[in-house]
């Protein structure tokens, strides 16, 4: 067991809207690792990230955390991951601090300092501004500041660079590198170059057997009982 990677995806496949998006995707990640997901628009990067977080059920394949399937102890896994998705997940009626502290308290980490977290992304002075008045880039910084509000070893970042300017991108690089140096792991989907130290890359491509009809026929004919 000791040799098994900390996080491992095996032969994952995703079905959305009755369509096979990707299949046979596997990856491994260990302490300090960074996995960058690439692929053309609609390839399934966001889907894979949500699948790792458990928001989307895999159509096939399995996900292993510390050697055991994630389903065994999902809550322990969830306590150890933070997901920063395409949507900010911020309440626009609340201030940046309130949003961050709510997040921290819900995860049982009330000791973190929201203003310091905001400072790491260079917006400490906006701490008490309601998110409603913020620009897209500022909102994204607040949502990334969540990463510092609760201890978690796995960070899942979907297009983290969206709406960020170069200053903020550099700051994110510093934060990510510090996290990895402390043994943390990062999975990030992006079209652009990630700042900070390089990691491994996983390109998601449409199912190898690009003849989609074949899959459909199989499915309809039920050669694969598990399809249903």
């Amino acid at each position, binding site marked *: 067991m000791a040799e098994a990677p900390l996080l491992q995806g095996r032969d994952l496949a995703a079905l959305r809207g009755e369509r096979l998006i990707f299949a046979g995707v596997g990856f491994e990640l260990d302490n300090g690792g960074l996995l960058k997901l690439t692929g053309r628009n609609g390839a399934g990067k966001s889907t894979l990230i949500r699948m790792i977080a458990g928001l989307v059920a895999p159509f096939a394949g399995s996900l292993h955390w510390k050697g055991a399937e994630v389903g065994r102890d999902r809550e322990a896994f969830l306590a150890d991951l933070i997901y920063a998705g395409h949507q900010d997940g911020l309440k626009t009626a609340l201030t940046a601090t309130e949003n961050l502290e709510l997040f921290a308290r819900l995860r049982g980490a009330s000791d973190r300092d929201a203003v310091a977290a905001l400072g790491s992304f260079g917006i400490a002075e906006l701490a008490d501004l309601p998110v409603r008045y913020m620009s897209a880039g500022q909102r994204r910084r607040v949502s990334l500041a969540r990463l510092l509000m609760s201890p978690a070893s796995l960070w899942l970042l979907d297009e983290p660079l969206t709406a960020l300017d170069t200053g903020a991108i550099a700051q994110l690089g510093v934060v990510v590198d510090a996290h990895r140096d402390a043994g943390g792991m990062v999975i990030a989907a992006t079209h652009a170059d990630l700042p900070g130290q390089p990691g491994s890359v996983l390109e998601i491509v449409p199912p190898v057997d690009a*003849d989609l*009809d*074949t899959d459909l*026929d199989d499915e*309809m*004919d039920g050669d694969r009982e598990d399809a249903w």
Partner: protein
Amino acid sequence: MSWGGSMSEFLSMGGYGFFVWTSWGVGAVLMIGLLIQSIAAARSAAREVQAIEQLSPRRRRRKADAE
């Protein structure tokens, strides 16, 4: 036949003709209508599948049980 063969007497249903015939009539219309609509939907769906299968390149082996 329980009626003396008189058509009008049969139709009047002892004065309740409206109620009896509407019940049977609407019931029949709805059930036949649903049947016809279902058959038509099945046919047109089958036709559509065939049409789109023809469009698909590299169409492989047996088609669905199109009827």
